[in-house]
């Protein structure tokens, strides 16, 4: 059985169907990205897995346990760093563990070193840059005792260069300290560079529109971004995302034609 199994869950708010019959799995120590346009209910999926919301139908399994509407089973890294401003960096890193009842200060200090934040252990969050705060937020999630980490577009608020650095940094840490990761993003390159598997969501109500196994070997280098195979994959996923977004015949036709990207955008936008 997979580590996380989401089976046919549906969720609607009043009459607004956000998720319908969504099903996917995540294996132990796998890095899975959920790719979808904004407003495709990505955050709702996390709220469901995190137990803030309960699905109207379907079940969510973690190993053999049903975790519908139960909190405390995932560790979480939100879009914003969400560090407590009155806690020092090491105290913030320990927060995830603290909520589950046990603190390992040594491990936290080690991880702060590994994360390249040596010397900032006793600094307050406002003394750190945006990228550094996100690193703290990630190691807080990494050190939490739960077996699966959910990352909700963690780099979307960073500038391009910092984002690239953070992606490389995240990979290097994760390749050393393997954990199960579910990563939500709307950035195709990010998903390709980081994940083992990509799940493309359709428009509302969200369903799995396509699924891709990313073939690139690890450890991955920055140069991957410019390789032909990478760009080919990017195109493939781009088309499938477009198709998922605009299910009209024009988009279907485009998937098979090999027009340049600019053309695709203008036609897809029209339908």
């Amino acid at each position: 059985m997979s580590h996380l199994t989401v089976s046919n869950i549906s969720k609607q708010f009043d009459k607004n169907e956000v998720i319908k019959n969504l099903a996917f799995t995540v294996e132990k120590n796998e890095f899975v990205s959920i790719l979808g346009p904004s407003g495709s209910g990505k955050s709702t999926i996390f709220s469901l897995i995190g137990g803030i919301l309960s699905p109207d139908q379907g079940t969510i399994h973690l190993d053999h346990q049903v975790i519908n509407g139960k909190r405390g089973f995932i560790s979480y890294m939100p879009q914003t760093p969400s560090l407590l401003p009155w806690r020092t960096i090491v105290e913030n890193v320990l927060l995830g563990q603290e909520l589950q009842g046990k603190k390992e200060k040594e491990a936290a200090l080690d991880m702060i070193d590994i994360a390249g934040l040596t010397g900032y252990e006793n600094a307050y969050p406002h003394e750190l840059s945006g990228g550094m705060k996100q690193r703290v937020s990630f190691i807080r999630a990494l050190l939490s005792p739960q077996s699966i980490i959910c990352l909700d577009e963690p780099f979307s608020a960073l500038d391009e260069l910092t984002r690239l650095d953070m992606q490389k940094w995240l990979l290097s840490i994760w390749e050393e300290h393997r954990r199960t990761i579910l990563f939500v993003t709307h950035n195709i390159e990010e998903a390709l560079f980081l994940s083992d598997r990509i799940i493309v969501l359709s428009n509302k109500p969200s369903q799995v529109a396509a699924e891709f196994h990313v073939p690139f070997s690890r450890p991955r280098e920055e140069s991957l971004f410019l390789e032909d195979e990478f760009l080919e994959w990017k195109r493939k996923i781009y088309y499938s995302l477009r198709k998922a977004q605009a299910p009209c015949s024009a988009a279907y036709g485009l998937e098979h034609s090999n027009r340049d990207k600019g053309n695709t955008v203008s036609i897809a936008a029209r339908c």
Partner: protein
Amino acid sequence: MVKIIAKGWRPLTVLLLLFIVWETVAIKSGVPDWLLPTPTKIFYEGFNGWFNFYPNLLSTIKLSLLGFALGLLIGLLTAILLHLLPFIRESIYPLLIISQNIPIIVLAPLLVIWFGFGLLPKMIVITLVCFFPITVAALDGFKQTSNELKHYMIMAGASNKQLFWKLELPYALPSLFSGLKISATYSVMGAVISEWLGAKEGIGVYMTLASSSFRTDRVFVAIFAIVALSLLFFSIIVLIERWLVRWQLKGAK
């Protein structure tokens, strides 16, 4: 310290100027001392009558500290209760506002009739004056807790208890301290009013005796003492705030 001097010289100069104008006007116009004593006479009386005055001062300090502590406790407990139990908040909050609309001067004699001249009616007066700013400030602080942080805490599996102690309470501290500053100064006023009800000693007693015997200079000594005491309480709270909320002050520069 340097900062205090750098910032404090302006109001101090104004105060000094005020005293000089007061002194000159009082002397030039020949107003009798029982009507308006000059500042020098007031300071003279404060200095000379110190041994008479300071047991009263001490008694008022004790009373206001005790009252403030009780007000803080009740104010904070009320806020926590109202925050954690929304259905109670809806039914009690309006009553809290009403409690502040009853003039203490009217209520005070009633309290004496009900509870006598002991400590209890005095504590009730001070607490009534003190708890409200604390409750309102703390409730506001709890309510303003950042949704972002709350969302993280809930997603990461924080229980309601953890959410309160690890997030909402520390988040409310800056706001709570605004309430504490107001309450700390009110507590002195509350103590003086409660001493008017009947007490053996205290600034309130000293003031009543002074005014009924037309010792206006002593009334002013009492007034200055009350002002100084309020300022002292205020600055103590500010110091505690600086220490407890140091993460915020550093961020605000």
